């Protein structure tokens, strides 16, 4: 079904980590590290150009889009390619999500019934999107492994949803490089701690003035031959954006 376009932002922002309240040093360190990872992606504002590749048993498709964000609550996306979807744009402003459909010249507000299914044929669900801003509240994090693995020095975090958090997952595991705090892989487990999907971060390169992974690939655990890949072509952080950009009227502009 239908799904907002700023998903790739949402995924990156999964790395925006939980505030940790405990007093211990260890906890402070977790917080510092995760904030450092977070800083990789988050600025006051951003502009990005991304290409999405989707491969499933039934089709393969490519889509190019550009997006703007300001703070955590305002995001705007617009499809650039292919032609048949060009101009389709999605706005998330606080708790509201709207999509503009150029073919019918209509703007639709996302409803709770639209949360299921894949967006644009990708392997992502809407759940993460709506939860984006709540990640900090939803999880508690700890370092579950630190040291050498597969020839790389890494730190592995385990994120467990808080008791009341509206999260379907049983836990998340995030592995980052000890040097540069660049994410490597993030794994989602269901409640029985069975792997549900994996996100791999690869192709580390200069992007927006820093070394970051430019490719992000989502693989569902039950269909290992399928994937959705996001490739960052351009990213600039802390760009000047007017609040007016994130309004219903700017949705329709091309």
């Amino acid at each position, binding site marked *: 079904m239908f799904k907002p376009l700023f998903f790739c932002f949402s995924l990156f922002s999964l790395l925006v980590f939980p505030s940790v309240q405990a007093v211990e040093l260890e906890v402070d360190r977790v917080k510092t590290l995760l904030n450092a990872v977070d800083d990789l992606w988050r600025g006051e504002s951003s502009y990005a150009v991304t290409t999405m590749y989707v491969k499933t048993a039934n089709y393969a498709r490519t889509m190019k889009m550009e997006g703007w964000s300001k703070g955590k609550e305002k995001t705007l996306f617009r499809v650039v390619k292919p032609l048949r979807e060009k101009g389709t744009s999605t706005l998330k402003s606080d708790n*509201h999500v709207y999509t503009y459909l150029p073919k019918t010249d209509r703007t639709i*507000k996302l409803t*709770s*019934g639209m949360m*299921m299914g894949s967006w644009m044929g990708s392997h992502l669900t809407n759940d993460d999107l709506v*939860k984006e801003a709540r990640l900090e509240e939803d999880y508690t994090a700890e370092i579950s492994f630190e040291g050498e693995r597969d020839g790389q020095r890494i730190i592995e975090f385990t994120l467990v949803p808080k008791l009341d958090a*509206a999260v*379907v997952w*049983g836990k998340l595991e995030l592995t980052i490089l000890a040097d540069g705090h660049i994410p490597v892989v993030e794994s989602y487990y269901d*409640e029985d701690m069975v792997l549900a999907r994996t996100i791999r971060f690869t192709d580390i390169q200069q992007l927006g003035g820093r070394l970051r992974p430019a490719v992000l690939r989502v693989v569902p655990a039950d269909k290992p031959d399928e994937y959705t890949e996001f490739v960052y072509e351009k990213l600039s952080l802390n760009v000047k954006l007017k609040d007016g950009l994130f309004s219903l009227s700017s949705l329709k502009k091309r």
Partner: protein
Amino acid sequence: MKLNLLAWRNLWRHKRRTLITASSIAFGVLLSVTFTGAGDYFYTRMIDAGAKMGMGHITVAARDYNRAPSSQKRLQSANQHQATLRELPEVSSVIARIQGQAMFASARKSVGGTFIAIDPAQETASNNLFIQCLVEGKMLETVSDKGIVMGVDLARKLQLSLGKKVVYTTTDVNGDIVSAIARVSGLFRTGVSEVDGGLALLPLQSVQTVLGYESDEVSFIAVNLHDQRASHVLRDSLQQQAAFQDMEVLNWQQTQPDLAGMIAVDKSANKISQLLIALLISAGIINTMLMSVLERIREFGVMMALGMSPRHLFGLVMLESFWLAVTGLIIGIIITIPWYLYMFETGLDLTSAYGDDFSFGGVLLDTVFKIRLFKESVVGILIGLFSLALIAGAYPAWRASRIPPVEGLKAL
């Protein structure tokens, strides 16, 4: 009085004929009691079961809620209205509920469905069908419980078992998307596939928090009655009251039009069948009375010659019909009482014929066939029976009163 005695004696001059006709009347009584009683029992069961599945016999809701339900339409000051409604003598229970559409999600799947948020303190097996249908785990315990009770098929689709997490996503009072978590505390099986595969119960207060409702705001108040037949009158009287002016008061026919339609059709089919049988019985009465008039033309001629007026003769035959009906009724009562008592207490178990998940108009039913007569139905059957006998007797009586005395003497 003498005419009465004469009529009674005339009737018993042909014992066999009278007994056969009386038996057919008695048979009619038995049938009528069975059909009407089965209807009275069956419809009440269905209506009560339907009421227990969500909206009660009477529903007090925000304006326009029933036509197009949404979480924006909510009923305020629910506690106060509940207190008012509890005062009414017809009312057996008054419960406040929130009902809405939600997407239920596990890590594996997500499924769209309906939720009903309840205050467990107000809900009992007598006003909540799902409590009776619980097959695993337990019911919600408090108004701010962390649990969710759902249909077995919904749990199966979501690949969930007891104790597992469910995220439900819905639209709040401002139209924004909100979601919250609950853990499966119980599973129910009603046998109605739409319900088992798409309904979940949630604790009221938790849902109020999620939706942004005040603590006395709900979707509707479900009012259950001691006797479902009072719903129409009570709804009309509530609608008149100032306290309920700016809201909607509905009865079960409006909240469950499918069920109401099904019952109406079944009732009319039942009535058509009864009417046919009534017509047959009256044909029997006419036949008997007409025969007895025809064979007594000479006798009536003599009676008229002796000074009996046509009006008396008419009355005589009508009285014969009346006493025939009384005889039939007495035989009818004698044969019907044991049958009725048996069907009232034990009933026929039709589980093998219908299976144990029989539903009617979207409402689950038990499959023991019992009969239960309302007082009005008893009165209806009696009135029906006597009017039948008297109408059927009218033509023969009229024929008798029209016999000219002389011709009567000449005949045969």
